C-alpha cells in the first residue's frame, strides 16, 4: 500500500535520511524504531509531505506522492499524527475534531466520523466543549489520534505517541492504539518504547543515523540480540 | 586601499561646494545637505533597527528635537547651542519613558513597533493640540536672527556653512555607529536580538542594553531634528513626526542595508535623489504622482531587494563568484 524506495531527505545542508526503503501493506501495523536523531520524525514528515525527498520515490496505492504538498497528500488517505501532538490548543475538542474532517471528502461523513471517534474515545466526548489546551497529555494524544481518524484515512502515521506521557498513561495509550488497529486501520508508528511497540505491531524497521539497519517480524526482531541489548534493555 | 578610497571620497565631499556647477550650485548643495541630515538620522535609527528593535516612531524624537530648539529660540531667544542640550535631554526622557517599560515587560516585535508608532503619533498630536505655541498643523517658522549669519542663532544665509555642518554631524554619526559596531555591546545586543531569553540566561542585562541603545538612538535623532530645523528654519508636525516620516527613515535604511556602516547613507541618498527627481519631474502638475511612484518603488524594492541594495548586491556578487569557481571544475 505504502512504499518508499531509496528516499534521501533532509533540511538544508543536513541530510537526515539516506536511501531509506520501506513498505507497509494494507491492514498491517508497522513500527519504525531507533535512537534519538535517527531520522524517524523526518521519515514521517517525508511521507506526509512536510519535507520533500531529495531522491527516491514514495508511492501510495501505486501513485507517486513524492513532491506533492502536504495538504494534497492527506487527500490520498494518509493521516499524520505529528510529534508533540500539535493539537490546536485554543480551539475546543469538538473544533479540533472538526478540523480533522476539513477535507472535502471527509466533510460529508463528518457526523458519522465524530460518532465513531467519540465511541472509541469516550473521554473526548465528555470534554467536547473544553479547550484542547486544557486537556491532560494523554487526552491530548487521544485527541490528536481522533483528529487524524476524522479524515477517514487509509493509513495513520503516529509519530512518538508516547512522548512526554507518564508511564501509566503510556500503557493506556498503547491499549488505545491497539483498539484503533482492531478497527481495521493500517498503522505506521515511530516509537522509543521499543519493547511495548513490538508487542503491538506485525513488523518493524530499525532506523539508525538515517539508514535502515534491520527489518523483520516484530516477534523475531525482539528476539534479536542486537535489538534486545541496544533498545529493549533485556 | 579602503583607506585610500575613503580619503578620496572625503576630499571630494570637502571640495564639493567649490566645484563648478553653474547655476545648479545652490540646488545641489540643498540636496546634499538633506542627504547628510537624513543619513545621519537613518544611521541613528539603524542603531536600534539592526538589533531587532523596530521603531516606527522615530518621528517622536525628531519632532521633539526640532520643536524644542525652535520654540526655545522663538520665545526666549535661547541659543540653539544650549537648546540642543535641552532637545537631547527631552528625547532621552521620551526614550526612557518609552523604552524602560517596553523592555521591562518584554514588548517586542510587532507590538514594540506599534507602541513606538503610538508614541510618534502622540508627539505629532501634542504639537497640533498646543497650537498657541507651536502653530499647530501649520507649523512654525524659526525667527530670523539679525544679519546674514549668526553663529549664536545657528542661522546662515550661505548654504555652504550648513553643508559643512551636516557633513561633520554625519561623520560624527558614522563614528558612533562604528563604535557601537565594535563594542561589547554589539555582541550582547545581537544575542538579545536573536534570542532574548537565552541572552538573559548567559547573564546579559537585557533591559539595560536595550535601553542604552534606545537612548543613544533617540539622542542622535533629536540632534538630527535640530539640524533639520536650523537648516530649513521651518518645522511642521506632519513632516517631522507621524507615521509618514518614520516610515521614510526606515525605508531609506532598509533600502541601503541596516547592517553596514554606509547602508543608511546609501539608502538616504537614493531615496532623497528619487523624491527630488520625481518632484522636479512632475512639478506642480499631477499632484500626488511623485509620491505615488515613490510608494510603488518602495513596495517593489522590498519585494525584490529584501536585503537592501547593499545586501542584495553582495549576495549577487557572492553568487557570481561561486558560479565562476564552480564553472572550471
Amino acid at each position, binding site marked *: 500500500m505504502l512504499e518508499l524506495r531509496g528516499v534521501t531527505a533532509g533540511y538544508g545542508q543536513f541530510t537526515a535520511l539516506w536511501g531509506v526503503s520501506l513498505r507497509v501493506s494494507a491492514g498491517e501495523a508497522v513500527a519504525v524504531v531507533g535512537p534519538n536523531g535517527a531520522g524517524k520524525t523526518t521519515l514521517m514528515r517525508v511521507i506526509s*509531505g512536510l519535507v520533500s525527498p531529495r531522491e527516491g520515490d514514495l508511492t501510495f496505492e501505486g501513485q507517486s506522492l513524492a513532491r506533492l*504538498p502536504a495538504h*494534497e497528500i492527506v487527500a490520498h488517505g494518509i493521516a499524520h499524527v505529528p510529534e508533540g501532538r500539535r493539537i490546536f490548543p485554543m480551539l475546543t475538542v469538538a473544533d479540533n475534531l472538526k478540523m480533522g474532517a476539513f477535507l472535502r471528502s471527509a466533510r460529508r461523513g463528518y457526523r458519522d466520523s465524530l460518532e465513531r471517534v467519540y465511541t472509541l474515545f469516550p473521554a473526548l466526548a465528555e470534554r467536547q466543549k473544553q479547550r484542547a489546551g486544557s486537556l491532560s497529555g494523554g487526552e491530548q494524544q487521544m485527541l490528536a489520534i481522533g483528529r487524524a481518524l476524522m479524515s477517514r484515512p487509509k493509513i495513520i502515521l503516529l509519530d512518538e505517541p508516547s512522548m512526554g506521557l507518564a508511564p501509566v498513561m503510556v500503557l493506556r495509550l498503547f491499549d488505545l492504539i491497539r483498539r484503533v488497529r482492531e478497527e481495521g486501520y493500517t498503522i505506521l508508528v515511530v516509537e522509543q518504547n521499543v519493547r511495548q511497540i513490538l508487542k503491538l505491531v506485525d513488523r518493524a524497521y530499525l532506523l539508525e543515523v538515517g539508514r535502515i539497519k534491520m527489518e523483520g517480524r516484530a516477534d523475531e526482531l525482539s528476539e534479536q540480540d542486537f535489538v534486545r541489548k541496544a533498545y529493549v534493555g533485556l | 586601499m579602503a583607506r585610500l578610497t575613503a580619503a578620496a571620497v572625503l576630499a571630494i565631499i570637502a571640495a564639493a561646494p567649490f566645484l563648478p556647477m553653474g547655476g545648479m550650485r545652490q540646488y545641489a548643495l540643498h540636496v546634499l545637505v538633506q542627504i547628510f541630515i537624513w543619513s545621519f538620522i537613518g544611521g541613528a535609527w539603524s542603531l536600534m533597527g539592526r538589533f531587532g528593535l523596530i521603531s516606527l516612531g522615530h518621528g517622536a524624537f525628531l519632532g521633539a528635537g526640532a520643536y524644542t530648539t525652535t520654540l526655545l529660540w522663538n520665545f526666549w531667544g535661547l541659543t540653539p547651542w544650549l537648546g540642543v542640550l535641552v532637545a537631547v535631554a527631552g528625547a532621552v526622557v521620551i526614550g526612557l519613558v518609552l523604552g524602560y517599560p517596553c523592555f521591562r515587560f518584554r514588548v517586542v516585535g510587532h507590538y514594540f513597533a506599534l507602541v513606538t508608532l503610538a508614541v510618534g503619533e502622540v508627539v505629532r498630536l501634542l504639537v497640533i493640540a498646543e497650537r498657541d505655541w507651536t502653530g499647530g498643523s501649520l507649523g512654525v517658522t524659526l525667527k530670523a536672527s539679525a544679519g546674514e549669519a549668526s553663529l549664536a542663532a545657528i542661522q546662515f544665509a550661505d548654504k555652504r556653512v550648513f553643508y559643512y555642518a551636516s557633513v561633520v554631524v554625519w561623520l560624527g554619526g558614522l563614528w558612533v555607529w562604528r563604535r557601537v559596531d565594535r563594542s561589547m555591546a554589539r555582541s550582547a545586543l545581537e544575542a538579545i536580538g536573536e534570542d532574548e531569553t537565552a541572552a538573559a540566561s548567559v547573564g546579559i542585562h537585557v533591559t539595560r542594553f536595550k535601553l542604552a541603545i534606545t537612548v543613544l538612538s533617540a539622542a542622535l535623532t533629536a540632534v538630527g531634528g535640530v539640524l533639520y530645523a536650523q537648516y530649513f528654519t521651518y518645522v511642521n508636525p506632519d513632516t517631522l513626526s507621524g507615521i509618514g516620516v518614520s516610515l521614510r527613515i526606515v525605508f531609506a535604511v532598509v533600502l541601503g542595508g541596516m547592517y553596514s556602516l554606509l547602508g543608511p547613507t546609501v539608502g538616504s541618498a537614493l531615496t532623497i535623489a528619487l523624491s527630488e527627481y520625481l518632484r522636479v519631474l512632475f512639478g506642480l502638475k499631477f499632484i500626488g504622482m511623485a509620491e505615488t511612484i515613490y510608494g510603488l518603488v518602495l513596495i517593489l524594492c522590498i519585494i525584490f531587494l529584501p536585503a537592501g541594495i547593499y545586501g542584495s548586491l553582495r549576495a549577487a556578487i557572492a553568487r557570481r563568484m561561486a558560479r565562476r569557481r564552480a564553472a572550471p571544475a
Partner: protein
Amino acid sequence: MIDPIFIAEAALNGILLGGVMALLALGLNLIFGVLDIVWIAYVELVMLCMYLVYFLVTGYGWPIWLGGLASVAFGAVLGVAVHLLIISPLLNSAAINQFLATGGLLFFLQSFATFLWTTDHRTVRLNLPIIEVAGMFLSFARLIAFVVAILAMIGLYLFLRHTFIGTAIRAVSQDRDAMRLMGANPQRVYVVTSAVGGAMAGLAGALLIIQYSVHPYFGAAFGPLTFMICVLGGLGNMVGAVVAAVIMSEIISVGGVMMSTEMGYVIAFVLFIVMMFARPGGILAKRE
C-alpha cells in the same frame, strides 16, 4: 463649564463610533492573527471603498445599500489583491520588510488618491433625520452604522465559529503546519482570511462615508487608532475588540468635546501605551 448634555451626547456618539471602529479593528485583527502581519495600509483600503461608495451614490445615483454591497465586494477584492501581490511574496521575510511593504502601499494609495481625486473632502448626503432624545441630538446615520456594524460582527462570529473554513482560519493562526496535515492549503486559508478582512474594510467604508467625509488622508486619521484598538482588544478576541473600540472611541469623543480633538487622541494613545505594559495580551486577557 461645558453643559453636561453635550458630554452625554458625546458619550453616546462615542459608543456609536465604537461599533464601527470595532468592526474595522476586527478585520485587521483577523489578518494580524492569522498571518502575523500588520497591514499598515488597512485603513487606506477603507478610504478607497469610501470613494467607491461616494462615486456610486452621488455620481451614478445608486441607492446607498447597493453602494454598500458593492463596497463590501470591492473590499474583498482589494484584500485578496493585497495578499497576492504584496503579502504573499513576503510571508517569510523579516517583520520590518512586511511593515515597509504595506507602508509603501500606504504612500501609494494616499498619493494616488490625491492624484486622481485631489484633496477635496467629499461627503455622501443622505436625507436621514436627526433624532432628539432627552435633549441630545443623535444622527440617524450613526445609529444605522452602529447597528449594521454590530450585525456584521455577529455574522463574522458565526462564520468563524460554525463553518469549516472559519474554524480553519482560527486553527491556522495557532499551528500552520498542523493545519496542512488536516488537508488545508494554508495559502487558500490566507486568501480567504484576506478577503474577509478586506470585506470588513469595505463594509466599514460604507458605514463611515455616511458619517464622515472622505479625503486621501482619511487613513492617517483613523489608521493608528485602528491598529491600537486591534492590539488592545487582543488577538482573536472579539469581545475584547468591542470593549477596546468603545473605550478608545469614548475617550476620543468625550475628550474631543471637553478639550480638543487632538487631546482626545493623545489621551487615548497614551492609554494604549500604558495598557501595552499592563496587559500585553489585550484588555480582557488574564495576566500571566
